[in-house]
């Protein structure tokens, strides 16, 4: 990685930045303050306009999706972005005004729909309130006639006509009145009460004592007419909503344009944000950032071609971002590494090692040739037909390689959809063959040779851990930390080898046993002598040496952790076998055959889902905990070049 400073004329700013963005060669660093003698250009108002447009288009697309979802479903997420010629950007830019107008119209239509929905809810409650008064033939807000006072309202109690009369009479025997009950239900009686005008005051008090209440929304219309009006209004609103929906549907054809325009504004926002962070003088401006070493020349050529400028390169500081560069075999595993953490300044890039062990262990855990073939075929087809973007392509590649490894391990374990070939053969012939008899090569049955396979798993684990420590060794050497390399790492590596020889000796020959024991003891003594070297006192040195030997428990638990290679491999095989067995349960008949196919397909799909996930997660864990724990520090930053960050379109670089 190199640091770079570009000084160019202000008049070339637009052209230069556009080309930098297109080429994605450099990462532009931002600083809070401008240096002396330079100023910042404030373009935040334009940036805000662009951002608002991005939001508006996002909203518009959401509205369109709610009316007519985009076709393609799950598989669409694998699809690569549409490629667009750089020349078309001008067209997109000139159309953007119209597209934004469409988006505004969409949001208006949508707002109308939601307003109407809210209004209709209000109408509904009003109608429910009017329901009780539908037989009343005077307006609800009537209070008096020429000679009588009229009270329209409700009591919170259920009354019959006579009961109500009694209740009022009991409250105030002096009152002359007439009542008419409009509606009565469990805890409500709606009634009209007439009293002589002279007794209005008295009547009000009496009624209040009986908790009489006037209607919530008295209208000057007769209730029936009012209800009629409201219903008409509601129908009109429904119609309007339908019209709005239809209008939105009519705009679906603009979806593609909206997406493209959104990307256009997104790109421009990015560019303006960069300009906001650049130092300008009266005539020139300065861009500072990072560029990968191999791209320096390209960058220089590009800049001098499009602008009058001066470039300056120097070695990047230690906290510069990192760009991972790997061959085709290892590249797919980069995402696994960055998911953990990009390499820090002291780290070596462990991707190639990681990639190899990732494929290897995944295959060993998933270990079924049939499933492996499915993985390889599915990923190959997806890469071929969907033309996915680089990131998705690498993810698919990862599983393609894992699939190859899965096939190989499946053949070693003699597992092709579990014991499907034997099961199917037996199903149709009634024979009693096993996979081991059918396959021409010798297989290792995890069920019968579990102990052997566990030893093999732990042996692979030992290799894995030793490779991890080897990386640490190299890192220490590079930093000229000789003690760290030979005493802390080297001795332990040798000790683990000694233990391995010792273990092999127990099984094979006493001679190896002695050799292994000697190596282990020698290393232990070495550790005792060296591990306390950093402490000053004699006592500290002795305690440090002894304490370091306790680390052996850590290595043992790390190694035991690799028994999951056996456990998950076995799980896949046994589950597959169980489904095969279940599928043949209904015997040989037409129904039995349909049942066979059904259980076979569903069972294996379930098994693939469960165990692919398990294998992925546990492989990752073995890398992250057991291997990375030995050497990897991480904490670096990823190289994020100033580039076209678009969601829907991909602008081809001009060659």
């Amino acid at each position, binding site marked *: 990685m190199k640091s770079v400073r570009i000084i160019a004329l202000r008049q070339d700013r637009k052209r230069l930045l556009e080309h930098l963005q297109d080429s994605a060669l450099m990462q532009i660093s931002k600083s809070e303050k401008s240096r002396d003698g330079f100023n910042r250009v404030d373009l935040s108002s334009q940036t805000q306009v662009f951002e608002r447009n991005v939001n508006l288009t996002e909203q518009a697309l959401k509205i369109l999706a709610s009316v007519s979802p985009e076709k393609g479903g799950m598989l669409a997420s694998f699809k690569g972005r549409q490629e667009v010629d750089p020349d078309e950007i001008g067209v997109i830019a000139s159309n953007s005004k119209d597209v934004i107008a469409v988006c505004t119209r969409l949001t208006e239509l949508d707002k109308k729909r939601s307003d109407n929905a809210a209004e209709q809810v209000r109408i509904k409650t009003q109608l429910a309130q009017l329901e009780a008064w539908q037989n009343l033939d005077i307006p609800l807000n009537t209070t008096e006639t020429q000679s009588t006072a009229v009270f329209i309202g409700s009591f919170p109690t259920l009354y019959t006509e006579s009961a109500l009369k009694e209740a009022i009479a009991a409250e105030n025997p002096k009152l002359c009145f007439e009542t008419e009950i409009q509606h009565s239900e469990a805890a409500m009686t709606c009634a009209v009460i007439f009293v002589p005008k002279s007794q209005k005051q008295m009547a009000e008090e009496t009624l209040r004592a009986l908790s009489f209440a006037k209607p919530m929304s008295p209208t000057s219309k007769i209730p029936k007419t009012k209800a009629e009006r409201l219903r008409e209004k509601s129908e009109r609103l429904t119609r309007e909503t339908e019209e709005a929906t239809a209008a939105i549907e009519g705009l679906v054809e603009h979806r593609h344009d909206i997406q493209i325009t959104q990307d256009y504004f997104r790109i421009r926002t990015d560019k303006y944000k960069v300009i906001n962070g650049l130092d300008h003088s009266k005539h020139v401006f300065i861009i500072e950032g990072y560029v990968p070493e191999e791209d320096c020349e390209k960058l220089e050529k590009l800049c001098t071609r499009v602008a009058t400028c001066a470039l300056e390169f120097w070695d990047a500081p230690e906290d510069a971002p990192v760009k991972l560069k790997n061959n085709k075999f290892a590249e797919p595993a980069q995402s696994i590494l960055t998911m*953990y953490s990009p390499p820090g300044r002291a780290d070596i890039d462990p991707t190639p090692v990681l990639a190899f062990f990732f494929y290897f262990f995944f295959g060993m855990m998933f270990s079924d040739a049939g499933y492996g073939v499915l993985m390889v075929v599915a990923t190959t087809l997806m890469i071929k037909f969907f033309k996915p973007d680089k990131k998705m392509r690498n993810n698919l590649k990862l599983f393609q390689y894992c699939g190859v490894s899965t096939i190989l391990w499946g053949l070693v374990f003699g597992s092709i959809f579990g014991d499907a070939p034997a099961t199917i053969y037996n199903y149709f012939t009634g024979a009693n063959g096993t996979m081991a008899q059918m396959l021409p090569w010798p297989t290792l049955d995890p*069920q019968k040779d579990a102990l052997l396979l566990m030893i093999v798993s732990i042996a692979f684990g030992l290799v894995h851990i030793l490779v991890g420590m080897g990386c640490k060794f190299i890192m220490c050497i590079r930093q000229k930390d000789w003690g760290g390399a030979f005493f802390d790492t080297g001795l332990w590596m040798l000790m683990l080898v000694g233990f391995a020889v010792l273990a092999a000796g127990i099984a094979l020959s006493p001679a190896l046993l002695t050799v292994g024991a000697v190596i282990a003891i020698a290393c232990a003594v070495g550790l005792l002598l060296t591990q306390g070297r950093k402490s000053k006192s004699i006592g500290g040195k002795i305690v440090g040496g002894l304490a370091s030997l306790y680390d052996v428990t850590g290595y043992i638990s790390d190694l035991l952790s690799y028994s999951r290679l056996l456990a998950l491999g076995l*799980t896949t095989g046994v589950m597959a076998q169980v489904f095969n067995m279940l599928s043949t349960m209904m015997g040989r008949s037409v129904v039995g055959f349909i049942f066979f196919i059904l259980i076979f397909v569903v069972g294996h799909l379930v098994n693939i889902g469960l165990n692919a*996930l398990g294998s992925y997660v546990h492989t990752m*864990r073995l890398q992250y905990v057991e291997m990375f724990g030995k050497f990897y520090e991480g904490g670096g930053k990823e190289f994020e070049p100033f580039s076209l960050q678009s969601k829907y379109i991909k602008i081809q670089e001009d060659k």
Partner: protein
Amino acid sequence: MNGMFFALLGASLATALAGIGSAKGVGSAAQTAMGVLSEDSSKFGKMLVLTLLPGTQGLYGFIVGFLILVSCGVLGGAMPTMGQGLAFCAASLAIGLGGLFSGIAQGKAAVSGIAMTAKDDANFSKGMVSVTLVEIYALLAFIVSLLVVIQIPSLKI
């Protein structure tokens, strides 16, 4: 009398106890995950991974149970003697109990992992690795049960 009863008891214990552990673990993780998904459904993939992590114990228990069935005369193999039956039963306890408690514990870890991932997607791999740390104990229990179960038919007890 032969050891069939105890062999079957062993198969049931292994499958059921480990299954309970996984069911509790996955259940509590799924509850939390659905809470997160109600806010942001785009996290479905990550949530699914974290939710399923405590599910392996049940599989381990089931495999031990299945291996007992295929070697004790139910789905193949010879009728076990009394001693063998008791041995099956004893061997199944490792994954049964180990799976039960590690499943529940892993479920709790998964709940925290989900909460962490809900805050920031970048935490996902750390959460995932931390949750798998619990799994090693279920794994050890499984290996013990497994190694014993496959040896029992050849034992003269």
